[in-house]
């Protein structure tokens, strides 16, 4: 924390907090959190990374999907304290300063999104898939993304977007 001061409540609240340190998109960040605070809420409200959306609160929709030590998890069903000492990647970490990740390009190129609400979670799930399987079939993509709901696109263009990204990633891997 670098702020000169932080306002505190005049009626002190006796809530136990725990210090957590998490590597978020390559940067070590720390926060004092209530043990019940959800990881999704720490990312969104605590760290201001609002690209991770919450859709259903019950681990079904996948809008909150982030990579936890490289594996896709639904951050609405994980406590922030469970992430202490771990590595978290969010949608904000996909693009470098100068260029988009091929998955981002693929989603735009193949019209893989409409309202954009499911998109960050979809892209993170797709990233995990392509890191494990650089040349997936359409069925493998559909299965890998079956934990993420989209209400707009009908998925067909999302599948094409992931295939587009897979092609580009394989080409650049030479």
């Amino acid at each position, binding site marked *: 924390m670098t702020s000169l001061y932080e306002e505190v409540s005049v009626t002190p609240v006796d809530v136990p907090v725990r210090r957590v340190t998490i590597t978020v998109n390559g940067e070590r960040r720390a926060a004092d959190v209530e043990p*019940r*605070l959800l990881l999704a809420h720490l990312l969104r409200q605590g760290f201001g990374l609002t690209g991770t959306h919450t859709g*259903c609160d*019950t681990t079904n*929709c996948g809008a909150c999907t982030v990579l936890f030590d490289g594996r896709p998890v639904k951050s609405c069903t994980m406590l922030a304290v469970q992430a202490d000492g771990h590595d978290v990647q969010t949608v904000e970490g996909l693009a470098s300063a100068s260029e988009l990740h091929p998955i981002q390009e693929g989603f735009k190129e193949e019209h893989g999104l409409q309202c*954009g*609400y*499911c998109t960050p979670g979809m892209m993170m799930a797709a990233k995990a898939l392509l890191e494990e399987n650089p040349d997936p079939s359409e069925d493998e993509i*559909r299965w890998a993304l079956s934990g993420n709901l989209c209400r707009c696109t009908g998925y*067909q263009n999302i599948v094409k977007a992931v295939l587009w990204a897979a092609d580009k990633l394989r080409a650049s891997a030479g």
Partner: protein
Amino acid sequence: MTIDEIKIGGMGASRRRVEDNRFIRGRGNYVDDVVLPGMLHMEILRSPLAHARIRSIDVSKAWEIPGVRLVLTGDMMATRNLAWMPTLSYDTQAVLATDKVRFQGQEVAAVIADDPYIAKDACEAIVVDYEPLPVIVNPMQAMADGAPLIRDDKENQPDNKVFDWEVGDRAATDQAFAEADVVSKLELHYPRSHPSPLEPCGSIADFDRSTGKLTVYMTTQAPHIIRAAVALVAELPEHMIRIISPDLGGGFGNKVPVYPGYVISILASILTERPVKWIEDKTGNLISTGFGRDVYLQGEMALRKDGRILGVRMHTISDHGAFFSDAQPSKFKIGLMHSAFACYDIPSAHLTATGMYTNKAPGGVAYRCSFRVTEAMFFQERMVQAAADDLGMDQAEFRRMNFVRDDDFPHRTAFGFLTDSGQYGKCLDVGLEAIGYEQFLKDQEEARKKGRLLGIGISTMTEPLGAGNSREYDILGIKMFDSAELRVHMTGKAILRTGAKTQGQGHETTWAQIVAHELGIPADDIVVEEGDTDTAPFGMGTYASRSTPVAGAAVAMVARKIRAKARKIAAHLLEVSEEDVEWELGRFYVRSQPDRGVSIQDCSMAAYSNVPDGMEPGLENTAYYDPPNLTWPFACYIATVEVDPETGVWDVLRMVAVDDCGVRINPMIVEGQIMGGLTEAYAMASMQFITFDADGNCVGSNYMDYLLPTAWETPGFELHEVVTPCPHHPIGAKGIGECATVGGPAAFVNAVMDAVKHLGVRNIDMPLLPDRVHQAANTGNDVSGMPPVRTDAP
């Protein structure tokens, strides 16, 4: 010299979407992403019971929790005259319950606190003493003698009836049935469904006492209607209300109504003088906000032996929940239900409709459709198949024989709509050719011999999209026009604002394409803004596929106004009279000297630096567009399925979609809309419904119980197009966003019925869950979707 329209991102270009640039970076700006200084958080306590009298509400324990700033109940709302609010259908709806709760999930109290966790804790500390009352879960129960009265708050409401309504020609229809060779009948239920955008509803109300201004960030598809409603309900001056609808995580009709949470957050901000954020959780969204459908449809068709349809009778019984808050823009009580059979040349038709109150959530919305059109077209296409079966006719031929013919437009339907264009037979041909109809029938025959159940289902329909016109369509008296404002800057760049509100349809991309088409300004040079009532011109918002038919037309018209002024400027720059100036895309030139010309950018520069004497400087304008008619796209959807008789599971083998939505502005986006719509059609046909147990408990209150298809279940789609331009739309476009949701379900259901009809099955109500299909396939009986009713009255 000539500008290539596709290269500048004009009409017909599959231009990649501008809005994607922020969404793929996680830089969208949805309501829950907005953080205001000093913001408090609101949580709503909801009723666990479907029907109960409130004996008392004890909020004292909630106040004791540190960080709680305000606790509101219905009685406190009543002191501000805000315990009840008007609905969009001229009924009233409780904001916070005072006397009774009338559905499970109804708003009972609200807590405003320093953070959302504290607010949730405090809601749990509120003690409500309920006296349970008998519960009504379907409209037939509501009609029964001695049924408990749900709306005892209303005067002159002796029973649970919302309305009786009729349309059409009863006598002519009776005559048609008297002359019929064959009468075909069908009865079905279109189940309650929830639009369920991934993003739930929410608002941030920010009342500034020093200026008197109320700013509300809100998940709304219609910000200007909300501003008008807030002005009327909260009695605040309209110029002191600013509604901002930022990025929306889907809408599908769910974000049209005014919800109690919005109203409570506004009062909470006024009382606390702090911004108050309310973000509904998914369960709150599913159990309390606008559902779609929930209609029982009965009907019969009078037929001649040779296959001609002579007349149609329909009766609908609709379940409106506890408050009649249908978000619909027509004067017709059951919406556009009577658009049914519009693509068929039918001499007579008559429809009666009854609406009932029940102890279920209110807020009937047009879930990805024009109001009640989905039910209408589903019934139409199920009825058409049943009639073809009864006559022993081929289902494609039966449709073709009864279609309105290409040279019969404009055509007045039996229910009084005026359809204006279409090539129905051609669409059907394209679809049959694509699916390989003849071959499939042979394959089906062969498969049946081996005990395999294959089926093919067709759904063909035209539907009315794009309300107004304003003579017939309004919301709370506000006419259904729409608007666009275009400001062309000095250097030829521009900003366009409309009264519509995108929720994923891609307006930021496509509106710029219309301007590019009309003015030759590259689409990339035009920024599009919507959703802020302080800056956007007054409009009615986006639903019912009305953006392109109405706001899109306004965009073309305002660009034409700009071009008309630019022409005068061009004449001045070219030193010729205006009559000697010709236009080609992006450029004015002298008719006799085509090489002498000025670009639209030259004109915009001159508009601010070198206007002719007597002309107002600047290059800005606004257009309000009141469409002369609805637009009538046509669609032919054909599905093939295989049913497993042992499990009742059915797989979609192929799904072919032929859509004629007139001229396509951005083909990529149009296809995206169609695929999204087909998926919702598949969802409703296969799994997606909200039901209630006999006690009024909502079954389907979260995504574990309310099933939505994932990428795994969703079939692939094959898209085809036919183009019949809309004769009255400035760029020939028709609506498209909802066509597949409206027309699609019948294709899937007809296909499953086709697979099992030889076993004696005539109807299985949606969704076609495996247990329902299994039961039908193994007993030969129909399966009804009627919800369970208690026989042991509590």
